């Protein structure tokens, strides 16, 4: 009984996929190792390998079993076939009497497949089942996330012989690319060899037990979690030494990403010129964290103050001074660009940009961005008016007028992810009202944000998300450019979801057909979209589909048929509330829902003409209990009472019993009506 080691060596696995791959590997190995008895499992991942170790592996013993074969009367040929199939000698077979007649029978010996065979089967199965978000081919016909270049499979100290897509398995594994640094890694000198390749140093793995240590000595920390811990710890330690704290925004994600980019993480402190600190922090943080995958630092005493330092994570014993110089050069070039854009952009007053929007087309047939801006002005005003917020109209119009201006700035040209954010900064710089400036930024958060968080942002941003979204949706649907299948080049689905989320988060009550009609009229006043637009009639259904998606995405409702029923209603704006009510009932009052379902099923069979309001013949205490409950308003507080009363009634009384049937069914029918104030319960039946 030995341990089993399997390492799949491949070219750099994308950092964001590594943890998922490790989990999948573990799950698949467990799932497909039914023919083996395994004491324990451990998996790991680095940019260049994915591995698993099974401890104390041995094959499941297949017990001796008696196998019955063909009728003796069927003759020699059938008998020979039986022997061949089961690998038994004719002399070992006996004849037995069964209800079918006299048949041949053999006792198949207990057997054990060689463990090596079972392990190779396991590996082959797992390799072809493993899931990757993307796959590629490189040679041969198998696909994987990146090319597989070597494999190690050891059962005890014995390498297993097999191959996958032309890559033979053996006992050679790759060291860190910088492993020859003897002063850094504690290498047994004679172990390392190049395997014919210039940059790939490696070693012969002796056994599953020595694997992790051998790798660690050659510069590879195999455990993703251990690398993450080292990065998180060292980054914080280094920051502390600078009297700084590490920016928390996306800290965990950045740690994980760096753990996925390194096999031997080493922190290096770098700096940039303090003159760049006049830039908006979002610009610096985007440059450092998103583009360069480095950690930005804040002042420990004044946490909203960025410091002109950052920490990069090097891989292995590179020359710290050289690498730092390289990173600083790249960051300096990027920040220098950003500073140039920032200074340039500030010189242009916002008002003059509104005119310049006339040079930027929105879409053929839908005018320029200036046309769009003017439509948004009308639409924002209309929304404020129709939601009883007339006093917000002047601000809403201002938001509309500035909404597209930052798209013309050099900074957004360079950092498209900062659209909206930069709008806010430039507006603030030019002395625009703070609520207006923030609305420019917040309108962008509705596309991806969660409803719970969006509730905290201002109403003007929500208006802009709705107005901008409706303008785009109506325009494209009128042109019959409707998303189908995976084709949604204009991201209309997300746009539609943003509109819904803005509406729901701020409980803005608007009539959808009215909103569509007004949006269209704005286009037509400008001379666009004249004539009929059959495509536009599909917009309502599109909204329903997006709602259905959001119900699932927000874990409100999961059952597709319930969602479908809910979404076929006319007034889609109320659906969210209904879904919330229904979700609460389904999740928190499932006993009541079960009882309600029983009633619902019974009453479904009842004909209308049978109904009555005369309950005078119902005198049983279980009946009176229901009648009494009908006299008090139905709220969630009384649901336990309803649950008990309904179950008792249905368990103990027979509804069809004469002469009570008609009255009892009518009573139940009233119960359904009475409880329907809780939400659209019928949809979940």
């Amino acid at each position, binding site marked *: 009984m030995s341990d089993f080691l399997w390492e799949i060596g491949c*070219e*750099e696995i*994308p*950092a*964001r996929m590594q943890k998922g791959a490790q989990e999948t590997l573990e799950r698949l190995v467990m799932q497909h190792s039914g023919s083996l008895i395994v004491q324990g499992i451990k998996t790991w991942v680095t*940019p260049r390998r994915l591995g698993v170790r099974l401890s104390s592996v041995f094959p499941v013993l297949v017990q001796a079993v008696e196998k019955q074969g063909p009728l003796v009367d069927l003759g020699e040929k059938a008998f020979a076939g039986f022997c061949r199939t089961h690998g038994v000698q004719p002399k070992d077979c006996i004849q037995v009497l069964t209800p079918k007649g006299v048949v041949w029978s053999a006792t198949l010996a207990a057997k054990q497949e060689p463990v090596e065979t079972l392990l190779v089967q396991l590996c082959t199965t797992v390799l072809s089942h493993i899931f990757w978000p*993307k796959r*590629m*081919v*490189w*040679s041969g016909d198998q696909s994987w*996330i*990146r*090319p597989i*270049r070597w494999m190690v499979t050891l059962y005890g100290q014995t390498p297993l012989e097999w191959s996958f897509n032309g890559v033979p398995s053996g006992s050679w594994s790759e060291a860190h*690319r*910088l492993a*020859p*640094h003897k002063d850094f890694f504690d290498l047994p000198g004679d172990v390392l060899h190049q395997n014919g*390749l*210039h*940059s*790939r140093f490696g070693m012969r793995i002796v056994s599953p037990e020595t694997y992790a240590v051998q790798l660690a000595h050659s510069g590879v920390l195999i455990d993703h979690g251990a690398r993450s811990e080292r990065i998180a710890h060292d980054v914080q330690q280094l920051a502390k030494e600078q009297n700084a704290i590490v920016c928390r925004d996306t800290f965990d994600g950045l740690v994980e990403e760096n753990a996925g*980019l390194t096999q031997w993480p080493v922190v290096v402190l770098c700096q940039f010129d303090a003159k760049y600190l006049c830039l908006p922090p979002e610009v610096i943080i985007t440059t450092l964290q998103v583009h*360069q*995958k480095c950690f930005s630092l804040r002042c420990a005493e004044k946490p909203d103050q960025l410091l002109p330092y950052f920490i*990069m994570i*090097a*891989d292995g014993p*590179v*020359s710290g001074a*050289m*690498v730092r*110089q*390289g*990173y600083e*050069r*790249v*960051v*300096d*070039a990027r920040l*220098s*660009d950003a500073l*140039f854009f920032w200074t340039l952009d500030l010189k242009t007053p916002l008002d003059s940009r509104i005119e310049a929007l006339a*040079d*930027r*087309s*929105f*879409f*053929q047939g*839908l005018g*320029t*961005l200036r046309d769009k801006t003017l439509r948004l002005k009308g639409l924002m005003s209309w929304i404020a008016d129709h939601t009883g917020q007339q006093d917000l109209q002047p601000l809403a119009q201002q938001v509309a007028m500035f909404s597209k201006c930052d*798209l*013309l700035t050099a900074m957004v*040209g360079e950092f498209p992810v900062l659209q909206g954010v930069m709008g806010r900064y430039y507006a603030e710089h030019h002395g625009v009202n703070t609520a207006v400036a923030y609305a420019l930024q917040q309108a962008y958060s509705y596309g991806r944000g969660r409803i719970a968080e969006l509730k905290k942002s201002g109403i003007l941003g929500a208006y802009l998300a709705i107005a901008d979204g409706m303008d*785009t949706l109506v325009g494209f649907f009128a042109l019959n450019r409707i998303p189908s299948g995976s084709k949604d*080049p*204009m991201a209309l689905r997300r746009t539609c979801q943003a509109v819904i989320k803005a509406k729901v988060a701020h409980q803005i009550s608007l009539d959808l057909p009215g909103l569509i009609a007004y949006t269209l009229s704005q286009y037509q006043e400008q001379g666009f979209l004249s004539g009929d637009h059959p495509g536009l009639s599909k917009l309502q259904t599109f909204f329903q589909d997006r709602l259905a998606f959001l119900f699932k995405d927000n874990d409100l409702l999961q059952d597709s048929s319930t969602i479908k029923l809910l979404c076929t209603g006319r007034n889609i704006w109320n659906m969210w509330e209904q879904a919330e009510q229904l979700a609460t009932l389904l999740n928190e009052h499932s006993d009541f829902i079960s009882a309600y379902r029983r009633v619902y099923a019974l009453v479904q069979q009842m004909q209308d003409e049978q109904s009555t309001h005369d309950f005078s013949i119902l005198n049983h205490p279980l009946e009176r209990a229901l009648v009494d409950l009908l006299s008090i308003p139905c709220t969630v507080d009384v649901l336990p009472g309803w649950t008990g009363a309904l179950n008792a009634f249905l368990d103990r009384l027979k509804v069809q019993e004469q002469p009570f049937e008609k009255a009892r069914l009518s009573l139940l029918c009233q119960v359904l009506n009475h409880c329907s104030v809780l939400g659209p319960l019928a949809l979940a039946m």
Partner: protein
Amino acid sequence: MTQARSFQSMVLALQEFWANQGCVLLQGYDLEMGAGTSSPFTSLYALTQKPWKAAFVQPCRRPSDGRYGENPNRVQKYHQFQVILKPSPGDVQDLLLRSYECLGIDTQKHDIRFVEDDWENPSLGAAGLGWEVWLDGMEVTQFTYFQQMGGMPCSPVSAEITYGLERIALFLQNKNSFFDLAWNDSDSDAAYTWGDVALRGEQQFSAWYFEHAPVSGLIQHFEDALAWGALALEKGLVLPAYDYVVQANHIFNVLDARGAIGVAQRAEYIARIRHLASACCVAWIRDQNLNEDPHATTADKAEHS
């Protein structure tokens, strides 16, 4: 390493290295294009079954990146060293690292990283998986295993290596500006910097692309290019048709630099270019199959052309 390599000696070193790997050394394609991938020697040649190894410098035009020569590392015209290897060899990453060594980069001292960057060129209907290669944090090379071209799967798979020559030169010469890079190895009077060679172009083309290029005329040229491409394709002339794909792409880039294309409009332009590009790829594969099939008769070929 005695003296940092000049820009031109880098090219010579890479050419020698890749020639030794069996590559056909070509000259850059003689049309304006944004990247060496757009060269038919990359895109169309990657589509067929026949092995193909080539290397060439491709001057690249990115009109929107023009900065009138005032930005140290943002220019409207720069140079890629493009390598295409079909089928992709098993030691291709190793070859790349060796080529760095021969440029004078000590791969044992610097931080070289393969960072996920799946490549996609929507106007060519092309996609591949790979990385951007970071040298001490600077992206110096794009490495891609082609999976699709003109919407069709690539088999066998090509590996494409694209070196950003200017960026590597910054690194090697320890400079902060493209314009200060030594272009040749001479000192004194005969010494030329990158700026000596390219500054006037940066200034004049930036002004042209951003301020003067006539929008309506360009739109007409765009339409013409697509129409002529379609016409050439009708006559069975794939390579001329593909040239018009390249030209339409460049005109689109100029219009974009002029700020004449809205966000929503982009997709429309790109889809039209891709449509022609895909048609070229389909026709190219069909032609190659016919040419490689010894049983195809002249009549077959005529019928298809």
